[in-house]
């Protein structure tokens, strides 16, 4: 590392043993986790579309998986991950404009994203079951 300097006063990354727990820690790692989960969900979605193109027999097999308890649980979690990634993604876009970066504001918006991720799948389930 020719020429690189490493003064002791460099900012320390938010390491778990160094910083006390705070909500923006959770909001950060959840964005990455939900992004990775959606990566998997998108692969599944591509296979679902290809199964629809392949015909009724292939599609029925996929349908069996989706209707099983683990398929339903996966869909529920995918909606939660989508809701979180959406809310926190918008939060990121707001941050990019320079707004909302005060610790108090960032905490509030982080809580909002987490609560939205909990409420959205319940709300959607209620809408599908009781509404419309």
């Amino acid at each position, binding site marked *: 590392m020719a020429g690189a300097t490493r003064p002791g006063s460099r900012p320390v990354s938010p390491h778990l043993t160094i910083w006390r727990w705070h909500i923006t820690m959770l909001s950060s790692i959840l964005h990455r986790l939900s992004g990775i989960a959606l990566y998997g969900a998108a692969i599944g979605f591509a296979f679902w579309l290809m199964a629809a193109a392949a015909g*009724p027999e292939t599609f029925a097999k996929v349908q069996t998986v989706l209707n099983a308890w683990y398929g339903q649980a996966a869909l529920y979690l995918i909606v939660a991950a989508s809701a979180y990634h959406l809310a926190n993604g918008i939060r990121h876009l707001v941050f990019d404009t320079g707004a909302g970066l005060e610790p108090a504001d960032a905490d509030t918006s982080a809580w909002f994203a987490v609560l939205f991720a909990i409420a959205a799948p319940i709300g959607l389930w209620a809408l599908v079951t009781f509404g419309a």
Partner: protein
Amino acid sequence: MSAPKNAMRTPLGKVRHHGAGKEGTGHFIATRATSVALALLLPWFIVTAALSLRTGYLGAIDFLTTPVNAVGVILLVAIGFYHMSLGMQEVVLDYIERPLSKALLLLLNAFVPLALGVGAVFAVLIVNFGV
């Protein structure tokens, strides 16, 4: 920099291998641009699919042969797969240090979303225009 006057390295030698240049800004902008599009497409799809996608093969075909749905799903797949490939590239670069593993995962992350994205778009076309 604090290098002594008689250091053997040229100025270029000092700055090389300190990381990639030039491409970061494009990556950043592409992530943000795809995010804005997905912020509309993803909730649209989830709510529409949950409310109007009926179970079974015919329900899925009905859904996908509605032109608005077909166009929306193709956009969601194309932009979503691009976005997730950009995002995963960042994750791989953050965590994977071994050069071979890193290269393999980056290659996989470039190919898999592209192949599945093309397959998924083609599937929507087959459903709409038959074989």
